């Protein structure tokens, strides 16, 4: 299984439904996109991510310098 957003294969099942095994939720350990098995995830081209671009995303809030 591939991540619908970043195409990584680092997918794992996050959780089963608490009742009746009605669904599962999956998450990508690279970009943290998650979806339920009852959904049909389709990520718009604008929101696709390349794993190599993740470190360059804006950091909010900026990490301050460590006090010595």
């Amino acid at each position, binding site marked *: 299984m591939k991540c619908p*957003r970043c195409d990584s294969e680092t997918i794992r099942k*996050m*959780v089963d*439904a*608490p*009742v*009746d095994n*009605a*669904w599962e*939720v999956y*998450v990508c350990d690279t*970009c*943290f*996109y*998650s*979806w*339920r098995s*009852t*959904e049909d995830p389709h*990520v*718009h081209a604008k*929101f696709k*991510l390349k794993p190599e671009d*993740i*470190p360059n*995303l*804006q*950091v*909010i*809030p*900026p*990490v*301050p*310098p*460590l*006090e010595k």
Partner: protein
Amino acid sequence: MAKVYKDLREFLETLEAEGQLVRIKDEVLPEPDIASAGRAASNLKNGPAVLFEKVKGYKYSVVTNVHGSWPNHALMMGMPKDTPVKEQFMELNRRWDKYPVPPKVLSREEAPCKENVVDKDINLFEILPLYRINDQDGGFFISKASVVTADPDDPGNFDKMNVGTYRIQVKDKDRIGIQALAMHDIAVQLEKAERKNEKVPIAICIGNNPLVTFMASTPIGYSQNEYEFVGALQDGVPCEIVKADLCDHIYVPAGSEVVLEGYIEPRVREVEGPFGEFPGSYSGARNQCVVRITHITHRTNPIYESLYLGIPWTEIDYLMALNTSVPLYKQIKEGFPELVALNAMYMHGHVAIISTKCRYGGYGKGIAFRLLSTPHGMPYTKIVIVVDEFVDPFNLEQVMWALASRVKPDKDVAIIPNCPGMPLDPSSYPAGMHTKMIIDATTPVPPEPNPRAVELLEPPAKTAEYEEIIRNLLKQMQ
């Protein structure tokens, strides 16, 4: 004395009794039903709260659109549901002056939020019926929590304890992402802790007394405590709180449905978003903070309270409307008593309308500059319209009349480039920078010349009397 609600449940009872809550009894899928109902309820005039009793795969119920109409907003304040917006604004102003009302601290045994404890094998999905709010969101978001943190350099200072609303993305059964923008109080606290590489203890409270949620989304001073304002807005009745389980200097609403406790991991950022945000568009993926949940307390059969946010107006707009207008009004009124009312209801104050009497020439522009220098107005407000004291800023037809009849654009419109902006506003570029615009639609007063001064039309003498007569005749026809 206004009606006061101890918790969400009491408020839902009132909403139902007043015809402002509907129940969906059939089982639904989490997506797209819950978010669709939130959008639909806010599309309707005087839309109700919507309670889903059964959500497929989950144990508990979900309620949405609790704050999502002016009748619900009035009922939140214990006022009749048909109270006009300007009257609600004036009543909020009156109660605001009762601040501070110290909260009542309950013992752990007295607090309903402590009825059940989960401190191992944390699984948010066991407690909360989480769901996707907008189609392109990066995951399931918790959109309506009141998040409590303390000042790491002054942890025992109750005034500096912060209760705020921040967007939260569920990343695992016990791990969430949180957005702490630099302009928000939580970011001030986070920076102090991160400089020392310390964890930030946090309590995320879901399903609250409606005025707690209201104050958590109100921009007040860093050293002003939200719970003391809740007591003020409850017309002097103290807000009931209880100490968090894991942290001695964090207090949570005693009646919360669910309290998630844990800590912000210092100096860690991970991909968060996109998320459909209050400007009516998505904000993209960014590297943001991460919280580990290690302890949950909850009421028996907890109700998950969540909101839909979309192109305005949706429920979130009612939580950024009068509670944005009132603090700005108070801050300006302190120095400029001529101020009559202030409407900053549009996208959390991006557009604001000020009604004021003008003491001397140029006064309207001066008042606008004052708004633009308040802590909230500086980044958020970009368009300020100033109208005369006899124009109701909550009556947009009147405001348009003021623009139509008072504004001479070459002298009354001012553009100020390169000012602070709100990064989530898609017209802010670079994100966080913006241009300000002031439109002075007040009547010129000396020394500003007014070469074509006019006499305003007055309502005929018996207008008010006839309003009453016509209203009664209409009632008889129903």
